[in-house]
């Protein structure tokens, strides 16, 4: 089923979307033009194909559906997402995957500030964000679980793969950086390590996912070593207090 977004208000568009999902498993929205909250709170094994540029909070609190955006997305895509998949065939704005608790996001190109902050994992639910390009500052801030893989493809020669205050307050999860990052950019709470076999398996799996979605060659991505960033403690502020 195809819905045309055009200049519809997001409330009406989402109303149409809910109605469509009452009957169909697969819905395509055309001509999206900044409408917010598309697929917000959507739960179930649905498919959503979006053409255009969805607004903020795309698929927030989503639990299960597979979303593909042919275009860029604005801020907070996948906010507090529970499970499912978001593929962005372009760049994402700020705070994609905020407090994401499960599911996967594949972003072909760059992300803005605060990508993957507050990501959390619990038991088998381990969220992952794969970023093809580079990230803005505060990547993985307060990250408590999950995986961020950042590839830095098409990185300008003198740019860094991630911005300032990278992984501040991180106390769980793992970030894999293709090609590494200068030490000065890394927060005190984390450390950089070489990848072991288990890490390579994880990376390989997500690289496959990335390549199949965006038509890349695996070899071109795996031609550089990955560096692993993990927190020094899951209790970064344990000794900060005196009790009275």
């Amino acid at each position, binding site marked *: 089923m195809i819905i045309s977004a055009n200049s519809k208000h997001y409330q009406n568009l989402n109303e149409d979307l809910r109605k469509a999902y009452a009957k169909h498993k697969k819905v395509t929205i055309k001509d999206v033009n900044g409408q917010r909250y598309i697929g917000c709170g959507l739960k179930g094994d649905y498919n959503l194909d979006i053409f255009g540029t969805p607004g903020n909070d795309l698929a927030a609190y989503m639990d299960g559906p597979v979303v593909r955006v042919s275009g860029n997305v604005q801020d907070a895509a996948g906010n507090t997402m529970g499970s499912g998949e978001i593929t962005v065939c372009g760049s994402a704005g700020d705070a994609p995957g905020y407090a994401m*608790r499960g599911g996967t996001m594949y972003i072909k190109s760059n992300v803005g500030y605060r990508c993957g902050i507050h990501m959390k994992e619990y038991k088998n639910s381990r969220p992952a964000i794969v970023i093809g390009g580079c990230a803005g500052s505060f990547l993985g801030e307060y990250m408590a679980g999950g995986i961020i893989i950042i590839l830095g493809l098409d990185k300008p020669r003198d740019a860094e793969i991630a911005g300032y205050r990278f992984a501040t307050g991180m106390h769980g999860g793992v970030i894999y950086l293709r090609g590494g990052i200068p030490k000065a950019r890394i927060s005190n709470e984390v450390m950089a390590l070489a990848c072991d076999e288990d890490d390579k398996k994880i990376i390989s799996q997500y690289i496959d996912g990335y390549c199949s979605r965006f038509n890349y060659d695996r070899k071109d991505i795996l031609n550089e070593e990955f560096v692993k960033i993990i927190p020094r403690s899951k209790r970064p502020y344990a000794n900060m207090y005196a009790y009275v």
Partner: protein
Amino acid sequence: MNFLNPEFQIIRDKDRCIKCGACVRQCSYEVHVSDKDTGELYTNDINCVACHRCTSICPTRTLTVKKNESVYRESANWTSDYINQIFRQAETGGVLLSGMSNPQPYPIYWDKILLNASQVTNPSIDPLREPMETRTYIGAKPDKIEFDSNGKLKTKMPPQVKLEMPIMFSAMSFGSISLNAQKSLAAAAQQCGTLFNTGEGGLHEELMPYKDCAIVQVASGRFGVSKEYLDMGRIIEIKIGQGAKPGIGGHLPGEKINEDVSKTRMIPIGTDAISPAPHHDIYSIEDLRQLVYSLKEATNYQKPVSVKIAAVHNSAAIASGIARAGADIIVLDGFRGGTGAAPVRIRDNVGIPIELALAAVDERLRSESLRSKVSLIAAGSFRNSADVVKGIALGADAVYIASAALIAMGCHMCRQCHTGKCNWGIATQRSDLVKRLNPEIMSQRAANLLTAWNHEIKEMLGGMGINSIDSLRGNRLMLRGIGLSQKELDILGIKHAGE
């Protein structure tokens, strides 16, 4: 060498003591010790926090907790509290952390406000004989309502939540308090027709039966937030700030994240649960609006969305913004509000009294014709039903209580919540302590408190000649200040007694 002077002293009446050892087994702070060889009982006074578990459990009432008579040389400036705090910081280099509410002797305006009563004209109402209405609906109200020709309501009403009394239980997360404490509050709320609040800790599966009286909270860490969680709550509350620690986030230490807490918060066991002060996606009223509407979208506009802020200097302007951001409810939490853990300096020095903030916010919303767009909930140390009545007359739709409810369940205000050793089974996750709080008993005690307050509210309303709580809301004519400056009276919007 320990520089600290014990704050309390335990007196044991040896003639009454039967050496049953209950005090030894009940004290998580290891104050009472039984000599292995002789069976004699001793006390380590320095560990005592005056929680009064021992005095309450002692079957012969043998024990008395006293303020330690051995004092530092008296000074109005260098009080023993400040000296002890310096000793602790000198030892540890740590940020002072404490629990419960600001204990400092700031003015308590409730105690400087008097209520009116009817005499002769507009006679008082006898609540024992006349119906008295304390039922309260919260949620945004439409500017006007329209009916069709059949007298049916045409206006689409925003979601409303019915409360049988204008008192709810304030946010206390599972993690900061025990599951048994939460269960007790939930069951009491259900019994009394009001709501409890999950705090930012998710909703434990054993609380599912109470989901219809749950306010589910969303805070910066988004702990426990899922589609189901949002669907379950009666109200969704965005927590921006907390009265006890404005500008500071929440931080549940890893040692309190046991299996159950981990499951409910959806994080691994033993990890710190960090909720920073700012939501890193909210830097403006417009950003807040985005979160409000994402929650409304996610739940199909079925439930009111509330925004909770700490009472601070410019609360009135912020509240105006929140109302404009589409919130259905604004919660104002005053600086005497409780907490499971807060840096002492923040708790004791940041924020403003709820009385002033409430009056200012109510006034501001009225002046901007926004008041009916939101319900206003006041929180931050409502200690009795008169405080509630005064709060409603100052403009609140309803109030949140937390400390009072915990006291009903045994809390003796020892302010050690942050240690996780609560001897009353409230602010702890230690299973040996949690089981001390039997929800069968404590839910009834919490319900009794609500019932009693509701009766008292009706009495006071009746005395004022008012038969509905709606007629009290913002009715500042019913209030008079005593011993207040003109400035304070102006902010409160009330006259001085005698005027």
